[in-house]
């Protein structure tokens, strides 16, 4: 009887733990293309818009492009010099766009809160009183971008489709400190 209880509860615990796991997917997009390859850059952005889920690797590549303004006169293309996901995470942490504690895998669905936090730091969006006090944590960064109409309503834990992510980056690119 005791063994039966143990097995039952272990099974339940395993199933509940698996149920809390974040969405993972294999992205077909290429993110380590040559910096001068303008067509590959456009293939990335417009291919991403057709993906049902934006992975961390796809999101971080796009956000680094948002952060890095190309040098004047340079060939338009890829501004992300990182070739791997680990390099992208390190780059974002070095520039303090991403929390040092971030440790999610490349193929996991990017969360709205993580994306919002990075965008707020890239665009220097200070937000209201709470963000001034607590900094751009995922929860309040998401709420701030919803307020600014850069993001559509939702929570910081949700995943992003490719179309949503491309739309958010586009609106962030438009943001010039003016409330819409």
């Amino acid at each position, binding site marked *: 009887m005791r063994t039966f209880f143990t097995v*039952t509860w272990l099974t339940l615990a395993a199933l509940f733990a698996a149920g809390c796991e974040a969405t993972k997917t294999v992205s077909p997009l290429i993110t380590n293309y040559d910096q001068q390859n303008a067509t590959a850059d456009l293939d990335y952005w417009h291919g991403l818009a057709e993906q049902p889920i934006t992975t961390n690797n796809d999101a971080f590549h796009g956000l680094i492009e948002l952060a890095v303004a190309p040098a004047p006169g340079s060939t338009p293309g890829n501004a992300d010099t990182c070739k791997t996901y680990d390099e992208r995470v390190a780059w974002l942490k070095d520039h303090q766009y991403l929390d040092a504690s971030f440790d999610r895998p490349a193929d996991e669905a990017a969360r709205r809160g993580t994306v919002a936090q990075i965008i707020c730091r890239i665009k220097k969006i200070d937000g209201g009183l709470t963000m001034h006090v607590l900094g751009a944590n995922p929860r309040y960064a998401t709420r701030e971008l919803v307020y600014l109409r850069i993001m559509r309503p*939702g*929570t910081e834990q949700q995943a992003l489709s490719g179309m949503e992510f491309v739309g958010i980056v586009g609106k962030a*690119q438009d943001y010039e400190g003016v409330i819409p």
Partner: protein
Amino acid sequence: MNRTRIAVFAAFFAAFSAAASFAQTSPTPTGADAPPPAAPAAPPTPAPAADKPLTTTVAAVTGNAEYRLNDKDAWKPIVADAQLPVGAELRTGIRGEVKLQVGPNAHIDVERLTYMVIGQLQQDGDTLRTLLAVQHGKVHFKIDHVGFRNDFKIATPTGTMAVKGTEGDLTSDTGTDITGNEDNGGNAINYTDSNGDTNNYTGGDSTDNQGGTTTGNSSQDTGNSNTGDGNGNGSGQNSPDTGALGGNTSNENSQQQIQTNTPPNEGGDY
């Protein structure tokens, strides 16, 4: 008896958990199993025999931008002064922008991260007919009166905007946002969503701006607020919005904004 009850209890929770686990951890199908991408912007219908074909001329290009003549053609960089035929597809990068003269009456700025198709462009008697299909991205439009009737439309995956003659912006991603100038008059912008519901938009109707209490936007959310479903497709729970007016004193452009999300509901009264 007690053992049977425990077994039933365990089986129930195991089934429940398995369902939750499957919903959250199933890898997204790719390749042949992948669901079709989001419904494309209304594919441009080949124009019927035109009285007089018109042209689209590239006035200026900034940043990364490419075009192709059809979906079997290779992408090529867009250069200034190029002529783009009906059916041409354009796409821009994160800092790309293309300024177009579309026929004699329309100035179009194809802005960042936009995918657009020139669907129709013709002079039909005394009417200039233009249809642009914006899959996603942002375009700035300025439609002039040049002695003809304007039949200018921009189709997005969530609806179609018709413009009689004014200036504004259209942004399309999981929904469509339209921002028109405050001096729009006579229902200058008309938006029909994917449910077939039509709304006329007149800039002067804004109660916020007529009241003189604010100097900025009047904002009307006419679609559903899309809060996503947690699976990344952003097409889940929708909370109807009643289209409340809201003022904003920090905007200097004195514009109005219409925002619709996917799927649009019956909309508000602009």
